[in-house]
């Protein structure tokens, strides 16, 4: 196939880049466990991006939607004031992200760019809190900021069961949705096209929100915002293997962020990842082909 052949070059380049950065990380004495845990977050984010096929509300990555900012605030508050138990932290972030998704779906209108505006507002709140923490308002806060943004569990290390279960969730959840692919794709087209009873539609929507919340929480806790480019890359890719390109791009950015973290500190690594996320999103946003007015949204 012609398209598959044209994919070979970018995929080879991305693979080489991911392996090179991983090798550089080993040379820079980044702990292999840290690298592996970051990859768990990448897998969860890849699964989350795959669920985007069933949810037309999702027009951007979790950085632009504000989910990472909300999760960062929640994680910072929970870790500083409540607990550092990883399971409780995962549960807390999971609940917060589900609530934020409900807010996005019930209150915001994606066609009016409200998700992007809400995302900016959440990031502005995060930035204000970060300034307060960094300027010494909160003892211990400054040292917590880097690990929170680049993967709290990766930096802290967790019991092996948690990454194993998280990885299993990242693999099984997309498989489950894949098994229900036609039903979920039809659901994503909106109520007028639905052919199932109301309770089936509600159950499917709830399942999607829960799955997305769980995957976003896992990804955030293992990789911070070092891989939040998946949705944009997948939609930007014009070849036959967008999923492979997406996974390799995220793995590459994740490993590069760890390298920057080893060289210049986790806060700079987070800043680079944040900038990359917006850069890729801007590329996707400006290159979208919506020739006709009916889809000239967001």
């Amino acid at each position, binding site marked *: 196939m012609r398209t598959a052949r044209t994919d070979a070059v970018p995929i080879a380049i991305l693979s080489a880049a991911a392996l090179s950065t991983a090798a550089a990380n080993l040379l820079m004495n980044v702990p292999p466990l840290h690298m592996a845990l970051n990859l768990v977050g990448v897998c969860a984010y890849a699964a989350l991006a795959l669920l985007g096929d069933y949810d037309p509300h999702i027009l951007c990555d979790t950085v632009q939607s504000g989910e990472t900012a909300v999760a960062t605030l929640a994680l910072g508050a929970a870790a500083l004031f409540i607990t550092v138990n990883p399971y409780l932290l995962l549960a807390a972030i999971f609940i917060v992200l589900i609530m934020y998704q409900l807010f996005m779906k019930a209150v915001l209108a994606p066609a009016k760019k409200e998700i992007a505006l809400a995302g900016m507002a959440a990031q502005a709140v995060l930035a204000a809190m970060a300034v307060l923490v960094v300027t010494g308002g909160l003892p211990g806060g400054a040292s917590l900021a880097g690990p929170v943004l680049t993967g709290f569990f990766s930096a802290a290390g967790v019991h092996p069961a948690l990454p194993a279960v998280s990885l299993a969730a990242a693999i099984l959840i997309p498989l489950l949705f894949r098994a229900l692919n*036609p*039903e979920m*794709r039809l659901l*994503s*087209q*909106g109520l007028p096209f639905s*052919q199932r009873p109301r309770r089936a539609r509600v159950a499917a929507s709830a399942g999607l929100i829960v799955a997305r919340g769980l995957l976003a929480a896992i990804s955030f806790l293992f990789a911070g915002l070092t891989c939040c480019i998946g949705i944009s890359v997948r939609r930007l890719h014009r070849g036959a293997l967008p999923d492979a390109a997406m996974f390799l791009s995220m793995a590459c950015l994740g490993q590069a962020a760890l390298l920057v973290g080893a060289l210049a500190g986790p806060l700079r690594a987070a800043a680079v990842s944040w900038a990359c996320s917006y850069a890729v999103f801007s590329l996707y946003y400006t290159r979208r*082909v919506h020739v006709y007015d*009916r889809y000239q949204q967001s």
Partner: protein
Amino acid sequence: MIDISNLSLTINGSAVLNNISLTMNDGEIIGLIGKSGSGKTLLLKSIAGRIRSYEGTVTIQDAAAGNRKGPQRGVAYYGSALPQNPEENLYNFLLLARVAHKKPFRPFSDYDRQVTEEYLSALDLGRYGGAKISTLPDGIFRLAMLAHTLIGERHAVLFDNPTNDLDILSVRLFRNALARYVMNGSRVAAVSSNDLNFISQTADRIVILADGRIAETGSTDIMTADTIKRHFGIDVLISRNIYNGKPEIHLFPDA
């Protein structure tokens, strides 16, 4: 068969449908016409179950409209709704219309794919099969939405202004597809339109709505200059189509 009995609908205190009783027989194409605001869309939406706050009864194949089971007994409604996921390609989107015919966790059958491909071909959409629906030109997009409605193979299909955005070839292809849809005598179609010529050439029976009531009903022969003057307030010339003898409406040039 669709049986509507004493259907009335009130919205914000004003009666928009008044005591409508109508039977649509299997194998029939019913044409609904009337001035804008006469209640065509509301009647179709009530039959489709999109509006449920009406009084009276709507039964479809002897089952109450709210209690339909199985795709063969159901109703498909074509309106102005846009699919929310524009990233889907056209073939996959059309195939999704067959979801009601399959069980969860099971793949589409060969028959599902065959029906989809037949309508793709019948409506001349084959070359757009791989295109994302967001990139389809307006006329092709509307034709695709019509195809989606037909591919579901419901017992009844209801079309609200189906010819909007369609070019002359697409109108003809749609008309042929609709005729074939009801041909086996086990399905019924209702079409509302402001295009009186389309209705007169397509429908087997015409229902004229005025102020939420059925003003007249009958074969296409009721499309006379007097009828149109009475219900639309405009003088027209009626001729007969030389191939099928059905009425054709012509506007007079401005005086």
